[in-house]
Structures are given as C-alpha cells and as structure tokens.
C-alpha cells in the first residue's frame, strides 16, 4: 500500500517510501488501522517531504471545515426535481438528489458534537482521530470557542475539593461500631430472632435518633424526678413508710380484684349453669369414657413433646448461625 517512490534515509525499506495523497487523507480521516497509523506517524516524524504534505492537507481540511454554511434557496430541491426527465426510474433519481442535497447540507454545517469535544478534552479519543479533530479545530472558530468553554468547565470541576466531616466523626462511628459488635458478641443464640434482635433494632443509630429518644424521655423523667423530690422532702415521709403504703395499696387492689372475680365469674348464673351441665354429662357412661380417652391422649401427647424437646432434641442449625458461618 505504500508508494514506490523510494529515497534513502537509512531506515528499513518500508519506511523509506513517501506517503501517498490517499494515505495522508486516510490518516486525517482516521481510517488507517492501528498498525498503518503507527507506521505513517513514524514516517512523518523523519520525512520532511511527507511532513510538509501532511501540513498542507491539514490546512486544506481546516479551510474546508471553516467554510461558512451556504444553504440553497428553499425551493432549490423542488426546481431541480421539476427539471428531472419524467421517465422510468425518475423516482429513484429524485431520491438520490434529495439524499445528495441532505448530505451536502449537513456536511457544510457540521461541528464537533459536545460529546466528542468532552472526550477530546478528557483524552478519550483514539490517537488516529485526534489529528482530524485538531484539523477541524484549527479552522473552526465555533468549535474552538466551544473547546475553551469545556476546558473552563473541566478546570472549574477540578478545583472542587474533598470536604472534612466535623470533629468527632471518627470517634462516633467507631463507638457505634463497637456497641453493635459488643451486642453481637453477647447475643444469646436462642434469642437472636426474637427479643434481642428487636431490642437491637431499637438502638438509635444516628445523632438525630438519639436526640429524639432523649427528647421523648426527658418529660417523664423530669416529672418523675420532681415528684420524688417533693415526696421525700416531706418530713413525715420516709422510704419505709412509702413502701408500707404501697404494699398496703397493692394488697387492697389485689383483694378487690379477687372479690370482683369471684362475684362476676365463679358465682355467676352462667357458671352455675355450666356446673349443672358438667354434673349431668358426668352421669352418662359414654361421655365419661370419651372424656377419659381424650384426657389420656392429650396427656400422652404432652409427655411426648416434653420428652422430645428435653431428652431427644435433634441438633438444629440456626439460620443466623448459618449466615454468619
């Protein structure tokens, strides 16, 4: 693929051939393979003739890229189509002309997209396409100005710095972590799912949550403290007297509850009717036998459950233990 117009530079024969116009254009268009691109780049680096050719082509590309957009008059396409011969295949011609006009129009006004410019600034564009972009930039004022704006934005973003959390953040996280680890270590295996896990979930994890808990606990604690202070600051009130008083009150309350229970349940009309019914049923032999059998079956089941759990328990794997192992 390289030109046969050789010259001697002391380099290998492949590199002593000048680049053809097609190769230089392919280089600028980014159409060379990686290997071809590397060869061409290396050649241009030491060959002044090809270097000059490349610069001339770059200039041409730049001038083409910088050409102002010239749009045809709105009825241009219609006028062209009107003059097309009305014969078979005319429709295909019209399509071709429309497509040609569209492509030419787009080509004249095409600037580098924002995505391409961003990738160019970030260095994400493949090396073989950079030359083409730079050729476009050297001739296109709009894209050059865009690049400057993007560069400004990138520099601005680069000035943003990491921020420090408030003093004590480290200690707070570590303290919280230690508390949770401690709770995990003491967590009784049997209570992992139920009570202990629920309590653990209730432990506040943030400063806000601690503040809320403290806020909720404060009023009852304050009121309780004031009441206790008032009570014990009275000269006639001692802890012993208060304990006797409370004991008396609790006993009185228990007695009242017991009486209410006796009056309302044990000695009620419904209870007496139930006693009479049981009395009647116990007189029937069939009922008595059935009752005895049911009682025996329930007792046997209870005994078996007790035995199975206490003396013959199988080793079970706790789901939490399985997860952590």
């Amino acid at each position, binding site marked *: 693929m390289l030109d046969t117009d050789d010259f001697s530079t002391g380099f290998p024969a492949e590199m002593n051939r000048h680049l053809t116009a097609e190769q230089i254009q392919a280089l600028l268009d980014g159409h060379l393979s990686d290997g071809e691109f590397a060869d061409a780049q290396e050649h241009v680096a030491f060959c002044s003739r090809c270097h000059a050719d490349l610069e001339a082509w770059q200039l041409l590309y730049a001038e083409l890229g910088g050409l102002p957009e010239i749009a045809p008059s709105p009825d241009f396409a219609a006028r062209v189509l009107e003059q097309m011969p009305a014969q078979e295949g005319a429709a295909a011609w019209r399509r071709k002309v429309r497509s040609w006009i569209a492509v030419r129009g787009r080509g004249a006004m095409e600037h580098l997209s924002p995505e391409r410019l961003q990738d160019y600034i970030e260095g994400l564009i493949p090396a073989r396409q950079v030359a083409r972009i730079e050729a476009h930039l050297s001739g296109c004022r709009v894209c050059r100005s865009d690049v400057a*704006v*993007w560069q400004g*934005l990138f520099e601005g*973003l680069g000035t*943003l*710095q990491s921020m420090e959390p408030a003093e004590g*953040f*480290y200690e707070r996280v570590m303290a919280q972590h230690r508390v949770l680890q401690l709770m995990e270590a003491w967590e009784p295996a049997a209570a992992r799912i139920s009570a202990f896990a629920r309590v653990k979930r209730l432990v506040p994890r943030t400063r806000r949550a601690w503040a809320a808990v403290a806020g909720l606990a404060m009023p009852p604690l304050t009121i309780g403290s004031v009441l206790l202070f008032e009570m014990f600051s009275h000269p006639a009130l001692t802890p012993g007297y208060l304990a006797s008083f409370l004991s008396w009150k609790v006993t009185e309350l228990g007695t009242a509850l017991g009486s209410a229970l006796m009056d309302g349940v044990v000695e009620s009309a419904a209870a007496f009717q139930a006693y009479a019914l049981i009395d009647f049923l116990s007189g029937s032999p069939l009922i008595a036998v059935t009752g005895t059998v049911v009682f025996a079956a329930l007792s046997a089941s209870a005994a078996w459950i007790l035995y199975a759990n206490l003396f013959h328990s199988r080793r079970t794997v706790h789901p939490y233990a399985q997860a952590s192992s």
Partner: protein
Amino acid sequence: MDYAELSDKELASLAAQGRQAAFGELLRRYQRPIFSLVFRMVRDRSLAEDLAQEAFIRAFGAIRSYDPRYKFSSWIFKIANNHTIDHLRKRKLDTVSIHGSPHARTAREEEETRLVVESGGESPQEYVEHKELGSQIEHAIGKLRPEYRTAILLRHVEGYPYDEIAEIMELPLGTVKTYLHRARSELKEHLAHLTQ
C-alpha cells in the same frame, strides 16, 4: 503491626477477623471522600454526617461479604452512594442551596450548613474569585439529577476512571459515559452566564 502500611484489601481481611484497628484505619482513609460525596449529594452537613456514619456502619457490619476481587474503594462508595440515593428518593431532596441547608431554621444553622469552598495559597482577590466560581459550580452541581451528580463527583472530585464509576454505580460503561456527557452539558448550560 503498622496498619497504615497495609492495603485496603489486607485491612478488610483483618477487619473481617474482628480487628478494631483495621476498621479504624479503613475509616480514617475513607471518612473524608465518603463524607465529601454524601455532603455534596444532600448539601446538609448534619444529615451528611448521619448518612455517612450509617454507610460506614453498614459496610463494617457486612465486611465479611466484601469480595477482595473488587476494589474496596468501589465497594464502600457503592454502599454510601446507594444509601444516599435511597435517602434522596425517600425525601426528594434533589435541590440544594449553596447558601446553606434547606432545613435550616435559624441564621446560625444556615451559616453552619453553608458550603465552604476551600482554597490554599491564593491572593485575596484570587481567593474571592475562586470561591465565587467554586460556589457557582457547586450550585450548578446541586441542580443535577442525583445520578448525574454522583457520576460528576466521582469523576471530577474523586478522580475515578470510568470503569470504576460504572462499578460503583452498578451501571454499564456506556450509561456512565452518557450520564457524564449529559451532566456536563447541563452544567455548561447552568454556568453559561460565566462565559459571556
């Protein structure tokens, strides 16, 4: 043992064995970048500290599930980012203010939550100009969607490569590129007045 000399993966392995010092060293290394990301996402110092603290507690609690084939930084950033995005979705705190927390109720709270743009070794004029520019950029970042904001912060503040950002955000590489392109385009629009 000098924990400061160990790699993140070694520390994570020791932490999984229950070594408190390893947890401490990991926290020391990541408290600033994690807090920084979370703070810029929610723009409320107190809330950011709570979220960052919860993220660390979550990560430490799940340290045994960390897979050393991946970078520890990606793993912990992923936890912090997911936690923050969840919070933002719940609270719909998408807009932020450079002038202080939107939840500030007093002038003092507003002052305390105001974003401070750090600067070093500059003349007073440069400092003021940079502070102003930084404030404008922070303000513009605050207007982005949370996902765009994460991508921009990870790329430009933390300096992560695209593939790691994709790993942290659990998104395909192409999506991350699109997010960054769109985010920057939005920033360019928001900051257009500076270039005129």
